[in-house]
């Protein structure tokens, strides 16, 4: 069992590590990390605010032990959407290219195949998280001096704990988005359909619904995962977001497992 899972993990990793996918994804992660982190510091004196949706994040706030990860928490949502696209494409392409039949002939244990693929994509999500964190914290550190933001508390024991907690929260969030992408890939069996529906829901539908009735944000899946990445918000507690995200992701995984194991592979 462990041997076959390891083989599935590394077989999937061969696909994930291809330069166009790996470098392309990490390039996107780097781009958003640099962009969001730079804006946070460069717009620190802007009356329009320097955070998400016009929120002002002051020098004092950035000088706290959580200052180093302030930018990184803000990009959690964007990294999640990147993960959703990658996981959805990697899963759906097995159907659209017809390669799933090859995989199942070589590894007929369907649940095992799903677990192995998910484990490999988790590893990909870990790399995304680490790359995003290193770049975001690095850019924040580089810009902090020029904007009179003290970094004294960033790397003391509290600061390091903040970094570890944020890394974990963003990783959980990215993984949640990714699993939703994987489920969409299994459901729609087409990379374009699964990615467009996932992105449409998370970036447009949830924002419109949330703007019309703010209380719905407490229940929408994308909002919960973004809240987990941020470690909780003023309106949604971390525990609530984490529990509800777990339920959404769990239900999605059950649906995906049933579909993946029971559905005929006829293409």
């Amino acid at each position, binding site marked *: 069992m462990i041997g076959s899972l390891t083989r*599935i993990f590394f077989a999937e990793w061969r696909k994930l590590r291809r330069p166009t996918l790996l470098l392309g994804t990490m390039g996107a992660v780097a781009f958003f990390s640099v962009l969001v982190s730079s804006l946070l510091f460069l717009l620190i004196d802007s009356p329009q605010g320097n955070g998400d949706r016009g929120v002002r994040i002051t020098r004092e706030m950035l000088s706290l032990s959580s200052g180093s990860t302030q930018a990184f928490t803000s990009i959690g949502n964007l990294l999640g959407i990147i993960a959703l696209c990658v996981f959805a494409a990697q899963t759906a392409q097995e159907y659209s290219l017809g390669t799933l039949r090859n995989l199942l002939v070589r590894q007929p244990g369907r649940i095992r195949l799903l677990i192995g693929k998910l484990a490999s994509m988790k590893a990909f999500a870990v790399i995304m998280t680490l790359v995003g964190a290193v770049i975001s914290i690095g850019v924040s550190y580089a810009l902090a001096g020029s904007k009179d933001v003290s970094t004294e508390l960033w790397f003391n024991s509290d600061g390091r704990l903040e970094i570890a907690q944020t890394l974990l929260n963003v990783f959980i969030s990215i993984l949640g988005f990714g699993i939703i992408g994987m489920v969409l890939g299994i459901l729609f069996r087409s990379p374009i359909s699964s990615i467009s529906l996932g992105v449409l829901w998370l970036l447009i539908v949830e924002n419109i619904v949330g703007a019309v009735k703010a209380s719905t944000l407490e229940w929408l899946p994308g909002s919960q995962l973004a809240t987990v990445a941020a470690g909780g918000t003023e309106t949604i507690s971390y525990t609530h977001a984490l529990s509800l995200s777990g339920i959404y992701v769990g239900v999605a995984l059950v649906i995906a497992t049933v579909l993946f194991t029971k559905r005929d592979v006829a293409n």
Partner: protein
Amino acid sequence: MPQLAISVSDLSKKYDSGFAVSHTNFQVPAGTICGFVGPNGAGKTTTIRMLLGLISPSGGTGRILGEPITSPEKYLSQVGAMIEGPAFYPALSGAENLKVLATLGGFPLERVDQLLAQVGLADRGKSKYKTYSLGMKQRLGIAAALLPNPKLLILDEPTNGLDPEGIQEIRQLLRSLADNGTTVFVSSHLLSELEIISEYLVMLRKGEVVFAGPMQDLFDAQQPFMLVKTENKGDLEKIIALAESAGHKAHIRDGVAHIEGPAEWAGVLNKLAFEAGILLTQLSPQLPNLEETFFEMTGDQK
């Protein structure tokens, strides 16, 4: 009784639109090359997918290498397959695509280079799959099927897209595999190729087996026939009428009259045609061949 590589009994697959495969029964002895033929939509690919555990049967049973098809994990490590043409990741090289499958199946990665050389892709192994021609893709699919050093090789249209030289190479490859004990179950529309290499045959029509057994048994059961062409194409119908009035089955296909009967009867037909004022431009007695028999048995008349 010979050891069986494939054995299916009452195997069926039913969709909302009806049976794709209906109560199929056939057996393939180990170590033989078995042709699997049928018109488009006859249920060949559905049958192959059931044998490989990709589709669950609606009814019936099957065994591959002695194991039930409900437990594909027990036999698939000894089975190589290419179903409905090659399917690989376009952005990966041919070699990398094979390495994905070798890793997954736990086969040594060294086999990848050996197989690429075996199918004539040694110098293109590092090229991306999306740059391959149809023939090269087909060769890569065959290489992937050979990864496990299979006891049973199931190939769906393996010569599709290959040039005559490539077809001959694949024929020789399949022959040498069978000579070394591998059972080859091959579906193809190139009936003349199957006739050359196959010892066994399974023929499907509308989801049902119309013949399953040694190729020679099929030919032995068929009548010899003759091909007849007339100077005036309109006279073909008259030739058919003459043959039928003499008790011989006859029909026209592709502008040629096909008349059942032994070679000796050709002289009689020639005389009858002469007396009826019909000038024959061709009168050639034929032994049954797979193509003729296929059309006869599947009713797939052009």
